[in-house]
């Protein structure tokens, strides 16, 4: 806001303070429903869960956190590792698919990559555990082709878990990345093609760097959705180590222990927040960069 604008505003506020206030009030009323929903369904549970995580039998303390780290420290690292692996794999697949679709219009692929969006997690979990079981569909096929007696199953292992996650998360990430790729001005690509750049080179040197903000969004959304998923780890993941969500469920269902469950919840908020803060700072730097 420059000085002129400020003066203008001050003038209007002085002349018509009543009208201004009324407008503000109407504006407030308009956003009130949204605020109430946000408060009741998001802010209140968030604070309640943080509060519960610090209470043990009516007293405040860090016992829940001590327990969470004592028993589940390995699972916390495991959850981050699985989510990170999933996210990286998902991004690679979605960049490859988007890069391809940026240059070639293949209707079939365009339809197929979106398909997993419409299949519920539960169904995917069940399908994957049958598909990847030691005597499941995949291994039955492979043993016949390769003529081997036994193959180890992928379900109930971290590979199977990442496999299932990537299958689910890819369409969403691809939607974001492809959207960014397509909205990029073709002039850049054509210029590169004129000087003889290959399609791969264009994807890596032009599309990815120029669409970095969108890819970051895809990264964070995939990471958050993975680390907060419960169905897939329960159905496909190994019996141990477990994802944080499985342990939260176990704490509540078997022990009625909301304290430790909420402590684990708060730990996963913090993990997600690390990425969110990084993202915000990155975005701020990016905007500043554009201005400069």
């Amino acid at each position, binding site marked *: 806001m420059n000085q002129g604008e400020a003066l203008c505003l001050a003038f209007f506020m002085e002349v018509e303070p009543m009208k201004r206030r009324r407008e503000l009030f109407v504006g407030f009323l308009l956003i009130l429903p949204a605020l109430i929903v946000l408060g009741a369904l998001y802010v209140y549970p968030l604070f309640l869960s943080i509060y519960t995580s610090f209470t043990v039998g009516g007293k405040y303390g860090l016992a829940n956190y001590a327990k969470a780290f*004592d*028993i*589940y420290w*390995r699972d916390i690292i495991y959850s981050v590792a699985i989510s990170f692996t999933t996210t990286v794999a998902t991004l690679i697949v979605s960049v490859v698919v988007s890069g391809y679709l940026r240059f070639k219009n293949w209707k079939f692929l365009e339809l197929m990559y979106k398909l997993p969006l419409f299949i519920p997690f539960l169904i995917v979990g069940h399908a994957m*555990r*049958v598909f990847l*079981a*030691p*005597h*499941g569909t995949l291994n039955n096929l492979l043993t016949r082709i390769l003529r081997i007696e036994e193959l180890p*199953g992928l*379900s*109930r292992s971290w590979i199977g878990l990442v496999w299932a996650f990537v299958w689910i998360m890819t369409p969403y990430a691809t939607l974001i990345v492809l959207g960014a790729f397509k909205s990029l001005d073709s002039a850049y690509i054509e210029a590169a093609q004129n000087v003889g750049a290959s399609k791969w080179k264009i994807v890596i040197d032009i599309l990815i760097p120029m669409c970095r903000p969108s890819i970051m969004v895809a990264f964070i959304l995939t990471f958050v959705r993975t680390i907060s998923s419960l169905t897939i780890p*329960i*159905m*496909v993941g*190994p*019996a*141990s*180590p*477990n994802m944080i969500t*499985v342990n939260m*469920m*176990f704490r*509540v*269902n*078997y*022990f*009625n222990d909301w304290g430790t469950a909420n402590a684990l919840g708060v730990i996963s908020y913090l993990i997600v927040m690390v990425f969110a803060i990084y993202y915000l700072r990155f975005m701020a730097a990016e905007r500043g960069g554009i201005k400069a």
Partner: protein
Amino acid sequence: MRRLCGVVLLIVAVVLLAQANIPIKVTLTMMVAGDQNMVDFFQYEIAPEFEKLYPNVKVKVVGTGPGDAGSQQIIQQLQLEKDSGKDKWAIDLVVIHEAGTIWGIERGLIRQYTDFLTTRRLVTMKTAEVALGVNVNGYVMPMFHSQTAIAYNPRFVKDPPKSYAELVEWVKKNPKRFGYNGIKGGMSGVSFVFGWVYWKSKNPDVLMNGPFDEKYMEDWPQIYAELKEFNKYVTLTAGNAGTLDALNRGEIWMGPVWVDMFYTWIREGRMDPNIRLILPEPGMPGQPMYFAIPTKAANADYALKLIEFVTSPAVHAKYIVDKFNWYPAIGVEYVTPHLGKEVFERLYRDIKEADLLKFGKRMPIADYRTRMLEAYERWVEK
């Protein structure tokens, strides 16, 4: 004057009686924890029969899901009703696990009612009085008893191990051919672990009946270290159904299962009927499901009638034992006259009644139970 009084009294009596005769439309809302078969049981078998008996009643069945999670849901719902301060709660009847029952009693969410129940006298099992070491007498009527056992595929296992000790030897000869679902994927795995601790512990009776004292847990680190060693030779499956699936596909040859689930799958053609059961020495735990009535249930009278109906010998025999393959909650001698011979033999083919009495253990009392599960997380999974 006296005459007038008499007339007035007569009129009042007539009015009252007339009102009692008008059938009031009642919706009996029940919440059921447990697998889908429990919900189906009430929705498609019991509700139509009960509504025939009491045409003014409509039974509404809400399933809350399997395991203690299902009971947890019920307790949360009842707590909400209580917190709302209403005089009449919207839930009339709940079917709940042992742990859930204890939470319900602790928080004053369920009431004592079994004094008014005639079929309560037919119960022979201790579970009507004690759940996980807590006195629940009066608050609950068992609906059935379900038992865990080890299923084995005779095609691969000619001579199944008859005890935990033999099983340990067996898995070393047949690595990865015994499978169970750990402790986070359902109660059949949990039961196997409890059975393991009972076998190794010096004081299994204390674990089942109390009292709670940490000194009875001193040998646990060693017990769980051995279980961790055992786990190296086994496959960890995905849930109760996961174990049955893996048995079906021949991935594992043995594994702990719920007896009722096992027979139901066979009856529905979802399970290889050649697979057999064995209850290994020194035994595995089983558990009842309980009927309980919320403290301020609006239609407690009809809830009581429904419990009476389900636990009456004829209905119990036809539905609980024959159709759903559960062990009866009331004494076997009351049920047998209503059962066909083949039904009786099916349920008691592999596991004889004597085995059940000898090797059918209780779940550990609540304090040991949570510590056993946590010990598994701490010493076996880590």
